[in-house]
């Protein structure tokens, strides 16, 4: 088992390597950091632009492979270069990952749990009112683009705040800047900021998972072992949870592991709209700002996440399904 996972790991590592190379080359050859400087008024002298760009290893006058070699040399030592503003990429990335995690960890777990719950209810009550209702909910949510959902949530919060006469829910940033107070007040402030973006992600995720969970559960509902569980005296609800859901979760677990891994860089819209300075926002800003080193670094990070997600998925599957374990 360990050997198998190791082999799998090496395979993923090769993929990460390839993705890294392609990511850097694409970013370096298609982005144009020079235009950032040339657009200034008055334009700085070309020599100083060249100096700055060379200093950051993003000068388009240097052959792209040479830049790549320099960059790679840094990466191997754990140095991802500097942003176009001159800060070390790694420092900023650490901050940004923290922001994204604070937003997404909770949201993913809640989204997954809610999705499973909704899916199970839909399956158990197939073709009854609650199934139709949850189906409608998930299709409407799936059909709503995240940015629209986020804007709608913002509007709802605005109404709520107005009705309450005070600000219950904030919709910009992670916390109120410069707020002083006890840890309790700070925590409440953070929660007030967290609710809306979390809700946006949870709804979208839950809608998505619930469809898969419903199908997985329906497969299990007709199975013989569920009948056996009832035949030995378990109540229907017990049998459904202990034997039905447990088995129906197997395909979901791998799915969930992958989704979570990829979400960390995929919450761009939510981060942008609610003003959370996380990874997703950073990536889009970097592309806009021709920040080659940042784009390359985020690509590496995303590739590494796929690796982690893949390993997680394998482990989760093996943990849940004894049939795939090797003894």
């Amino acid at each position: 088992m360990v050997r198998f996972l190791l082999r799998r790991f090496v395979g993923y590592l090769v993929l990460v390597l390839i993705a890294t190379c392609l990511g850097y080359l694409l970013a370096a050859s298609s982005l144009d950091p020079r235009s950032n400087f040339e657009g200034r008024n008055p334009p700085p002298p070309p020599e100083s632009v060249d100096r700055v760009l060379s200093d950051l290893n993003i000068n388009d006058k240097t052959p792209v492979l040479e830049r790549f070699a320099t960059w790679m040399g840094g990466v191997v030592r754990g140095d991802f270069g500097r942003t176009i503003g001159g800060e070390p990429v790694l420092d900023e990335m650490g901050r940004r990952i923290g922001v994204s995690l604070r937003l997404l960890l909770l949201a993913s777990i809640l989204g997954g749990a809610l999705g499973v719950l909704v899916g199970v209810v839909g399956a158990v009550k197939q073709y009854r009112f609650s199934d139709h209702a949850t189906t409608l909910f998930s299709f409407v949510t799936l059909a709503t683009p995240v940015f629209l959902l986020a804007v709608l949530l913002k509007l709802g919060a605005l109404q709520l705040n107005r009705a309450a006469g005070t600000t219950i829910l904030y919709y910009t940033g992670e916390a109120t800047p410069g707020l002083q107070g006890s840890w309790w007040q700070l925590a409440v402030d953070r929660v007030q900021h967290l609710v809306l973006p979390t809700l946006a992600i949870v709804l979208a995720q839950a809608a998505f998972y619930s469809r898969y969970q419903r199908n997985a559960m329906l497969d299990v509902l007709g199975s013989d072992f569920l009948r056996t569980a009832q035949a030995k005296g378990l109540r229907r609800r017990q049998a459904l949870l202990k034997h039905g859901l447990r088995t129906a979760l197997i395909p979901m677990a791998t799915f969930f592991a992958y989704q979570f891994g990829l979400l960390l860089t995929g919450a761009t819209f939510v981060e942008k709209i609610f003003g959370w300075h996380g990874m997703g926002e950073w990536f889009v800003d970097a592309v806009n700002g021709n920040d080659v080193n940042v784009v390359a670094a985020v690509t590496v990070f995303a590739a590494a996440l796929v690796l982690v997600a893949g390993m997680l998925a394998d482990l989760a599957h093996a943990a849940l399904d004894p049939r795939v374990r090797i003894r």
Partner: protein
Amino acid sequence: MTAGAGATAREPTTTDAAGPVLQVADLAVSFSTERGLLRAVRGMSYEVRSGEVLGIVGESGCGKSVSALAVMGLLPTSARVSGSVRFRDRELLGLDDPQLSAIRGKGISMVFQDPLSAFTPVYTVGAQIAEAVRVHTETSRDQAARRAAELLDLVGIPDATRRARAFPHEFSGGMRQRAMIAMAIANDPEVIIADEPTTALDVTIQAQVLDVLRTAQQATGAAIVMITHDLGVMAGVADRLIVMYAGRPAEVGSVDQVFHAPRMPYTLGLLGSLPRLDAAAGQPLTPVEGAPPSLVALPPGCPFAPRCPLQVGVCVEVEPGLDPTSASDHLAACHRSDEIEAGALGPADVFPVPPPVEPPIAAIPREERPVVLEVRELVKSFPLTRGALLRRRVGTIHALDGVSFDLREGETLALVGESGSGKTTTVNEILALAAPMAGSVVVLGRETSTLETSTRKETRRDLGMVFQDPSASLDPRMPVGDILAEGLRAHGVAKGQRRRRVGELLGLVGLDAGHVSRYPHEFSGGQQQRIAIARALALDPKVIVLDEPVSALDVSIRAGVVNLLQRLKAELGLAYLFVGHDLSLVRHVADRVAVMHLGRIVEIGAVERVFGDAAHPYTRALLSAVPLPDPRRERVRRRIVLEGELPSPLDPPSGCRFRTRCPLFVAVEPERRQRCVDEDPMGRPQGEDHLAACHHAELRNRG
């Protein structure tokens, strides 16, 4: 080894003074379908007492399983159930889930058909049995686990404490069914409902499981309701029998009454269509023509009337009630049961028996007939991988290890053996028409390893193939005409000729030539298999490989298909390679038989020699495990129960591969045993056309 101990004589059951434990009265189950109301069960009534075994027998879709699930309250909520189910003095119909779940598994428990799908794959077997204990009694986790191991030990699982920690997929089919029984008896139930408990199992394992069921009954004193389509099993197990047809009981009585004095034509038909191990070969079976009616729109009269040769006017107008015959406890639903009784009519009197067919070529001695298929020292091995997702090679399975036989024109050679013995691998190797790993396959004088692409195609013409399940082997999106013409087209037969040949083929297998544009699903199972046979015949092959050709079909349908195969063989001078596990059927259809065990042929010869005086202890055990559809003979049948299961083909025993299970090995003197351990036995002549690979075949009567 318990040779002889397994004689199936049963003590007459003492009637429980407290009355029946389970009483079902006028049970009816229906489902709403798109086509209308499906009446799955109508007017089902029975009662069982402690220690009694009630058999419910019938074909698929006759309502036997549905009625059992109705008793347990396990039908889907869409089912409408009426009537009465009384357990002890309690009415079960109408109870809610918490009330019923207190009875399920404790008062009434159930053994299901397919124990692989009936166990939850993600929990260990022991945990699932322990769960059954803990649901009904306050028990600690440890105690329940110990009890689970005890129960597994009781049903004969060796090393039970360790095996309890195994997952269902790590058990063999027989072991899973034992574990299923262990789970059913965990709370000393008063009634055990067993739904086709041995259907998916090999005959030797079936015998073991039936024994376990008896042990379980003795341990709990429970009443058993046994559901099966296999009349042979019933004869040895049941006290009373209900024969069901189209959702209702057609005949009810003691096993002796039903088997020896059937009063309902359907029962007669079922009995007549069964091939029997103890009957002489060559006599055609009496088929019941037609198929069971749709339960959605039942005609007003007797549901069996359209298939019944005794049908008269009243039969199609009034449905007969289930009325007592001359014996008050023997009921039959037939307007003419009195006449059947008065005339003492048997199956052959009621159903038309086709004349016996004898191929003209049978007149020529076997040695003078040309060999159409020759297999010499065939070897095949597979890499064994573990895990569905995470694959890795853990060893090599020697699926075939030196298999040799020949098949001559106009004869049927049957390959028999337990699953895993290599029957299907042999067939696949022959049909591949490629060079085998070792050994040779010669089809009509052509060695397969030397075939070129064109000659291989030419050779394929001469090899027909019929598979087990016609609903899977016929493309559902192709009309029958195209299915039959496909092979013809592939071999360049002109269009006009093709059409003519398709009509001819349909006629040959007894189907209407006007049906060419219909799709497979519009035909019944028996008709589908006839289409598959017609397809195999399309290119006028000399040899047809029949892989379990009737085992997916219902009993009453089988006889017709078997008779058709026999007739075609005689008329067209075909040779059949017949793969089967039903030894009674093999006895009926085969001229010669090869018994396979762990990738070897252990005994081969003329069917009357091998079945009449089996020389290899394995063959003797196989034959003795076959239940006879005759309660009187069943009671005195001496069975050889093989302990354990087929050894792993990964690591076969040294010397004789059968010795670990061999009753003869145990019976002979220790000095003789050494030879079995050291020396791999070769086939030795046991008389004319009869070889057996056993060192001590002469001493066979000791086993």
